[in-house]
């Protein structure tokens, strides 16, 4: 668990504040989970474990409220123990922040998570938090980001200003871990374009607004690129990947039009770094058919397309999503147990590569939730990124207890 100086300082200040609170409301909740993965094929690379991966996780949440909810403090630590992958045994402070609510403004300070965007299959514009790459394969798990955030509510929209002191490195599977390429990412060989390294202070400003059926957001981000450039390097006798984080300026826009049963979604970024400038788009729709076959079940149909001006990722750096089509369906049974099934199919139109995803979940009793995930990753072309994961098809079962 890495915590830099600023984080420690923020944590100390926040805790001090917490102990000074009199007549505050304290609440806790959270979940404890067990997860089992089964990989149908043995590891493609030598050190990888063979089939079974067992892990346990815990994520409590503590909240304090005072001044009638005007001030509050939230603390959400997280820890996962993984029996097979040493790197997946990891902890993080997902959240530790103070929030003050004014009439038409909010001030938030500490470690937080912030999500931006509207699409489902790729989160292009979501840029504040680093991906917790070892936690989940879909990139939706994020590491906490230290920040000062002022949010101003105006008639013409909500303005959010962010000062982000310090940077989090992405997490990657270790030597024994599955769902990785032939080379392991070296977490001790990290370099930065900025001389401030991981102490660089990033900045972001976002405007978001609702105009009738349209929800619109746009932002500018200046700071450390969350996506590392991975290049092969020697670590003693073994070849590894070293991480390089450059500086970037990024302009992002996200729009959703909610018209009748249709959600039309559009996300686009323009990123500028010293090495290259590029643009990318993810766009599509979600259509919900309410009450199929005279039942209470809702059927959602999703289609998205992803494009990137860099073109396909080959030997040189390119994009993984450059001419990709995504199809999905979401079935919500609307029953007492909130049973749900999500199916997704994605294919790279430039390569013979595709992946299939099925996620099902259901509640048991009042406090248990079971998830069943299936992932298939196929490619017949050596140059495609998915080729390096072609033996990593797996089934995952998890059970969480909520308290």
């Amino acid at each position, binding site marked *: 668990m890495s915590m830099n100086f600023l984080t420690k300082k923020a944590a100390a200040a926040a805790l001090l504040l917490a102990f000074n609170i009199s007549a505050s409301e304290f*609440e806790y*909740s959270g*979940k404890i989970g067990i997860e089992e993965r089964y990989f149908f094929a043995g590891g493609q690379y030598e050190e990888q474990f063979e089939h079974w991966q067992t892990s346990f996780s815990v994520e409590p*949440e503590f*909240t304090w409220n005072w001044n009638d909810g005007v001030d*509050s403090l*939230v603390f959400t630590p997280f820890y996962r123990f993984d029996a097979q992958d040493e790197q997946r045994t990891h902890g993080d402070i997902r959240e530790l922040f103070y*929030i003050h*609510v004014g*009439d*038409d403004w*909010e001030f938030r300070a500490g470690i937080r*998570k*912030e*999500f931006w*965007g*509207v699409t489902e299959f790729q989160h292009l514009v979501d840029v504040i938090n680093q991906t917790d790459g070892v936690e989940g394969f879909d990139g*939706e798990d994020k590491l906490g980001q230290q920040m000062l955030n002022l*949010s101003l*509510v105006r008639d013409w929209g*909500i303005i959010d200003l962010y000062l982000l002191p310090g940077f989090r490195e992405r997490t990657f599977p270790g030597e024994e871990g599955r769902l990785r390429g032939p080379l392991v990412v070296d977490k001790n060989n990290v370099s930065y374009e900025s001389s401030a390294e991981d102490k660089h202070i990033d900045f972001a400003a976002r405007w*978001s607004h*609702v105009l009738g059926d349209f*929800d619109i957001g746009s932002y500018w981000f200046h700071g450390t690129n969350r996506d590392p450039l991975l290049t092969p390097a020697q670590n003693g006798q073994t070849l590894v990947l070293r991480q390089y984080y450059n500086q970037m300026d990024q302009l992002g826009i996200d729009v*959703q039009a*909610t018209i*009748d*049963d*249709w*959600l039309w979604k559009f996300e686009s970024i323009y990123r500028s770094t010293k090495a290259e400038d590029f643009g990318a788009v993810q766009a599509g729709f979600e259509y*919900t058919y*309410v*009450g199929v076959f005279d039942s*209470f079940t*809702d059927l959602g149909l999703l289609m998205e397309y992803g494009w990137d001006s860099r073109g396909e990722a080959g030997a040189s750096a390119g994009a993984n999503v450059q001419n990709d089509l995504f199809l999905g369906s979401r079935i919500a049974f*609307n*029953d*007492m*147990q*909130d049973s749900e099934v999500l199916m997704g199919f994605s294919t790279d139109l430039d390569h013979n590569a595709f992946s299939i995803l099925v996620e099902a979940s259901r*509640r048991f009793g*009042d*406090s248990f*939730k079971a998830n069943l995930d299936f992932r298939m990753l196929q490619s017949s072309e050596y140059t495609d990124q998915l080729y390096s994961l072609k033996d990593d098809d797996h089934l995952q079962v998890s059970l*969480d207890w*909520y*308290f």
Partner: protein
Amino acid sequence: MLYQGRLKTVLITTLLAAASLSSFAVSQQETDQEKNARRKGLDISVEVKNRDSGWGDSKADMLMILRNEQGQESVREIKIKSLEQLGDGDKSLTVFNKPKDVKGSAFLSYSHAEKADDQWLYLPSLKRVKRISSRNKSGPFMGSEFSFEDFSSFEVEKYSYKYLGNEKIAAKDFFKVEQFPVDENSGYTRRVVWIDQQEYLVHKIDYYDRKNSLLKTLTYVDYQQYSGKFWRARSMQMINHQNGKSTELIWNNYTFNNGLSEGDFNRNALKRTR
């Protein structure tokens, strides 16, 4: 406030009277009796709305108990804040506390009298605010026998009316009014509503599905008066006649005119609902 309420009544009555006049011209067959039933149904419903105006904002805790045919129960714990809007549907923020796996999830709704409601959902696990389609009004709310539509605020413009007569139940006099949803996406062809003649409170609603057969009955139990003015039922019981399931809502800690403002009903408020 009172004056505005009265003015609104006059306006609505005039507008709807004008509307019924123009449609009278089209359907020449409408008899005086039918016209009177329409007028009276409207007048009663306008009075229901007016007697319950001026509450400004409200806060309440709701316990939702789901029961299936076998008698198995599942409980949801919900907090609801509402903001009264003059000349439009109300705004509401619904926060889920139980089941525990959805704790912190929240639902923001701007209901409208004539156009579709604006609705957003907040998913705490992803920290994501998602605008959702409000056409899904006939779908069940949280797996219960209440639909999204049943939770939307009552606005006079959402229905056309027909007065069916008076009925005496347990020594109490009721108006019986038929209400026909204007929105074609409604899950109902009509509702039959029992309104007591003294306080103009809704005591019972029969819901008829799209095939015009009786689907559900909602009963309001144990009305309490708050702030010396506003009546709210302590319990609301919805029985689904077609699937044998039922849902009971138990309301606690009602407060009115808390000084809530627009700022408590925007997308930022949606995110700070833990």
